[in-house]
């Protein structure tokens, strides 16, 4: 009797232990997964909260296209005030700052890139290629934005030694961060974008997902900021040959709060800068210099801007159709990149074709007069002015100032607020913003001068 019971007990125990492994393999939470399937990686890249809506505002705040009233300036927190006045300390908060938001995108992209390095190993290589192409695109964009904010503009010679940004290419958090040269930074962006062009389909199912046409556009932007006009033109061409639709502003309702629709036909890839208090159109007032650049029949003055009670202007023309500022890639930007490159190459008539193509969509129907000129400087100026009007509040002006100063434009910025004058001289080191203060405690990275 006793022996039988013992046997039964031992038997039970053995069965119990052998089935342990299976029993314990059940997932603790059905919504959780260890990322391994293609659907997991695509799901990581379709989370727009972390990829499409977190672009940084610091370049827009620093660039000088808007000003604040004294009361509004004083009502803002010190980080915004310091950023607005080009200070070198306490410019970024310790947490959830722009640096982190960019590198969070890099981590997500690296997770996908590291896992999908060999797309052919997956059941559906075409889908795998599409996903890894998106990841390369996001990593390139995050690196590029970080370079724009924290490094000097690209320079063939100086960039070989000037401090760029850390280029984290895997998910190992034990690897210390190290600032690579600006040159290496741009090379990385170009390589990533070329890989993304290789892998992405021409168009993706939604402009929230990167596509080949958007990657071409971003590569054109990259080369333009490097002042490599021939490559910029080449990739702008590639992009425009796939998609060049422009939105006719005549069909828009200028009285709406946000007249330009979200995901409109010009949008190639949609990302936004959230409407932080300092750039919200209840505070940020447009520099009158820009407002004065608009001609009488230009619809943009009423479509892109609202008039405040004090006669100043606020921006309402985001391609996101909301208070968030569109900072993605769109046809109008690519077109202006090509126009600028053509002008710089001396192909003035070609440049003017692009310029006029845009103008006719922006003016009241039938009232646009084609621009004509044989003067290269004139055409370049026209293009650059067009960039200021057309691409305002896109987060692009900061880099434009930096690269144009490299061309000798000598653009200095100045601000007066709370009875103090602030100035940022052309080509000064202040154009590379200081790294967040606590980053210097956490790492051995060097601060910008």
């Amino acid at each position: 009797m006793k022996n039988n019971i013992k046997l039964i007990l031992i038997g039970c125990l053995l069965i119990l232990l052998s089935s342990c492994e299976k029993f314990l393999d059940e997932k603790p939470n059905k919504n959780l997964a260890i990322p391994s399937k293609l659907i997991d990686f695509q799901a990581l890249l379709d989370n727009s909260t972390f990829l499409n809506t977190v672009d940084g505002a610091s370049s827009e705040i620093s660039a000088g296209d808007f000003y604040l009233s004294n009361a509004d300036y004083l009502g803002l927190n010190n980080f915004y005030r310091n950023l607005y006045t080009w200070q070198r300390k306490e410019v970024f908060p310790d947490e959830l700052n722009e640096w982190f938001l960019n590198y969070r995108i890099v981590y997500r992209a690296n997770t996908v890139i590291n896992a999908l390095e060999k797309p052919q190993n997956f059941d559906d290589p075409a889908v795998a290629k599409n996903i890894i192409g998106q990841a390369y695109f996001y990593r390139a964009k995050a690196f590029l934005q970080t370079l724009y904010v924290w490094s000097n503009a690209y320079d063939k010679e100086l960039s070989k030694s000037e401090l760029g940004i850390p280029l984290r290419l895997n998910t190992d958090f034990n690897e210390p961060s190290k600032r690579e040269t600006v040159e290496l930074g741009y090379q990385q962006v170009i390589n990533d974008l070329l890989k993304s062009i290789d892998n992405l389909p021409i168009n993706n199912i939604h402009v929230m997902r990167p596509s080949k046409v958007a990657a071409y556009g971003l590569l054109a932007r990259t080369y333009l900021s490097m002042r490599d006009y021939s490559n910029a033109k080449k990739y702008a061409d590639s992009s425009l040959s796939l998609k060049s639709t422009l939105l006719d502003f005549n069909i828009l309702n200028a009285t709406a709060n946000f007249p330009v629709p979200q995901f409109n036909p010009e949008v190639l890839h949609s990302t936004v800068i959230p409407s932080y208090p300092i750039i919200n159109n209840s505070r940020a007032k447009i520099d009158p210099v820009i407002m004065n650049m608009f001609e009488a029949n230009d619809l943009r003055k009423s479509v892109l801007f609202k008039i405040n009670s004090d006669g100043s202007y606020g921006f309402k023309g985001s391609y996101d159709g909301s208070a968030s500022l569109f900072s993605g890639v769109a046809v109008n930007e690519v077109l202006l990149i090509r126009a600028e490159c053509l002008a710089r190459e001396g192909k003035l008539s070609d440049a003017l074709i692009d310029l006029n193509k845009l103008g006719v969509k922006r003016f009241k129907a039938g009232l646009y007069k084609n621009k004509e000129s044989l003067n290269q400087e004139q055409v370049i100026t026209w293009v650059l002015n067009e960039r200021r009007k057309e691409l305002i509040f896109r987060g692009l002006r900061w880099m434009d100032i930096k690269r144009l100063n490299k061309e000798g434009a000598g653009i200095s910025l100045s601000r007066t607020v709370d009875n103090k004058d602030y100035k940022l001289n052309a080509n000064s080191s202040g154009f590379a913003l200081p790294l967040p203060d606590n980053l210097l405690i956490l790492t051995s990275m060097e601060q910008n001068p």
Partner: protein
Amino acid sequence: MLFICIFSYKVQAQNLVNGRVVDNSGKGLQSVNIYYNNKISTSDSSGYFKLNLTEGKHRISFKSIGFFSKDSILTMPLKEDLIVVLQDNVAAIEEVVINTGYQKIHKTRSTGSFGIIENKDLNLQVESNLIHKLEGLVSGYNIDRKTNGAGGYGIMIRGLSTIRGSRSPLIILDNFPYEGDISNLDPNEVENITILKDAAAASIWGAKAGNGVIVISTKKSGFNNPLKVNVSANSKINQVPDLFYKPRISSSDMVDVENYLFDLGYYKSLESNIAQTPLSEVVETRIAQRDGIITTQVANAIIENLRSFDLRNEINDKVFRTPISQQYAFDISKGNNVSNWMLFGGFNNQIDELNNGNQKFNIRYANNFKLGSNVRIGSKIHYTIGNLSQGLPNVIDLNVSSGILPLYTRLYDDAGNELPVLRNYRKKYLDGLSNKGLLDWNYYPLSENNNIDYSNKTREFIGNLNVDFKLSNDLNLNASYQFSNQVGLIKNFYSEQSYFTRDLINRFTQIDGNGLIKYVIPKGEIRDFSSNDSERHNLRSQLNFDKEFGRHNISALVGGEVSMADLESTSSRFYGINSESLNLVNVDYVNAYKTFVNGSNAFIPNGNSLGGLNNRSISLYFNGAYTFNNKYTFSVSARRDAANTFGLKINDKWNPLFSSGFSWLASNEQFYKIDVLPYLRFRGTFGSSGNTDPSMSAVTTIIYSSVASPYTLSPQANFFNFQNPQLRWEKVYMFNLGLDFGFKNNVIKGSVEYFKKKSVDLFSLTELDYTTGIGNSIVKNAGIIGANGIDLEIVSNNLKGKLKWETYLNFSLSKDNVIKNYLANRSGRNFLTGNLSYTAIEGYPVYGLYSYKWAGLDPKTGNPQGYKDGLVSQDYAALTGNAVTVDDLKFHGAAFPKLFGSVGNNFSLYGLSLKFRLSYKFGYYFRKPSLSYTSLFSMRDGYGEYESRWQKPGDELFTNVPSNIYPANSNRDSFYAGSEVNVLKGDHIRIQYVNLSYNFPGKKFNQLLKNTNVFIVASNLGIIWRANKYGIDPDYKDIPISKSFAVGINGRF
């Protein structure tokens, strides 16, 4: 050789003595130790014993727990059988049986540390929540109502064992872990509660026992038990919460502040904000005046009128009602020699000051029967029905999209009509919308609940089967299985008249150029459902061994346990319901629509989601105790656990834990001669237990959102855990030394214990370079904390006789100390987060209070001043900046009391008894709330000390509250908030309850009523002494729990 000779000689000369030990009533006493000639024997289960004695005189001692020991001189040979009568010693500790959830052991044989609370002590307070009743009744038990880590019930047993892991102890209900809501349990059905405090006591519960274990046993019937009926009923009223407890800026001061800000142009940008954020009545009036819509005179009249209102008075008068609750319970039990049963029923009804209702109905049936002499089967069914209903909103803390409501807000106009209050949009904006075809967009807080039909139902079923086979005299096999099912269903029906529905419909209303209106969210009711359904299975089989041979006693158990819990949850929402025909309208979740107010794009909120959790675990355990001579006990236990946490290999999932202990009943020694102290026992244990966090994982995991991306219509996911291969479970080692004593005649009895614990491998947040992209910190098993303390429990019988007076004293000393914790960021400002989260600085308590050194207010400007590099400074950016490290801060002390406990006194005379208990906490600090001009300006949230702010030179002698400056400087505010003037001592003494009861002596009044008891109890009577002078109750984050008064009756038939 010599020994053998002597021995054999003695054998020859021996006479057999037959004897019996009995108590006063003549009942045989078992296990009485009999000392004679340096030998020891024990009586059998009926009190009989046999001794072999040589001829001549012998001194024999009889000792047993609960009785006075007796020494006799016997002269051999005896003529007749020996009868020894031992006198009852009530002083000796009653034969308490401890239930660990796995076994029942006699307290006298246990080595571990236990606290036991009986039903009669629980019933002294009328409280629906068991957990809160325990505070003060047992040493080493503290409730934290304040910090963010408090978790479920905020229970802390013997201080902290973890830095950032869960602090909740494991709760066991009738032998199985209880994972439901403990407030579902009716306190009337609890027989007793055992708190397992040290590692040896808790180790049997393994990896979940690191924070201690609370074992709750419900009432049961015994065998051979005549029919018994208990009934009880009580009714309680509470005072309404004291809205004036938290000082707030007065209406009049708020008006002044807003006028001042208006003149400075502060509201300019808000006015043109397209989100139409609400502006207060003062600001709107000033705008209307500025724009010439009303005259200055009218404006001033409106504004001046506001100064006299106080929202708190209006709430007290027109919103609050007296909170009231009732409890009714009965139990019936009966048993014969083969079976027994018990039926319990309880009903609990509570209505709070805002008319929120909470009803609970509990029913339980348990029975046991014997099948032959070797099998015993027990079963239990428990069913709970809980219903919550919703009352009025808490207007004082109403979250308005631009802050909180100013105190001058009115809920009713002079004619008694309800007024709308600020909510999401400006009044001026809403007024301008009148003819646009929108629904009324005003928010009326007090009638809102008429338009919402809310119900929250909980149904809980627990079924339990327990089979006990007696395999032999020493060995039995026990198998038990428990199934529990908890179902919750929350319904929220928002009628079309509710603000919730009107707001949603309006926000999505589309009006085209021709004025055509399209309701993207259809008119009609919106219904939200959310349900969860959890099923738990626990299966345990256990082999128990208990053998007594001679002076040796071995008791051991070995067993295995498998548990599985599945939880499914579902939420759904329906729009456009016609509540009469129940037809509904589908909405478009796929496309974004321009919202009405600011024209930005938004999707219709989708209330649908699904979830599923699945926790599984397997455990093997062993526990053994060896007792020699009824005096020395040695115990060991070991346990391994495994669970389906992510990313650990099966071998790593198993986590072995062990413990061992000893105890020595000194008073049973023959040489023990201290008659005034007839009971004395020493014990000690050492062991380990664990603390798991199932959400921690060693591999990268992602979590899917319940809703797909609205753009690509594909699933979207986010990171949940980042790869972290070194993660392990936390471990707690504890050493415990105890001394139990009882003086003669029960004058004083009690226990004193010393414990020391060390928690290692603690999850600790390590600062991380956020360039890695995963955040600025990562969890590592890097922390070590130590804690030690003393628990003392004393019961003294001061007076016996007609007037009885007993005093209960609980005293706990507990101190924790961080031994190792990596702080990559030592910036001082990270350690001033109030007393709400851990600081964990090495060498200091886990929760410590730190502050900036204070150099007073500047006599010229009223600016707060601190010290920078030893010099007085007003550079707030520097004073609060990164350069100020933890080493520059002033350390005050711990945020948890170092010393706490209670003193209870029971007086009784005839049937009347008066019982009251004071509880005390000493040796800790808290940070008082303070005025922040930043929140005052932007959120209208001003602490009441605004009125004592510095206003003119000289004020600095009387106040520490900084002057009002514009613009507000958030660094200046945080310097003041974090300065030493705002750190106060938490020490206090409070009255926990006063209970007056009368017992009708059954015989005199009625034969049927064996015992009837009526009582009046007052609870939460509040603080009678405190160290801070601001009238703050340091144990509560917000308004402290209000006083309550209850009357009740218990009867037994």
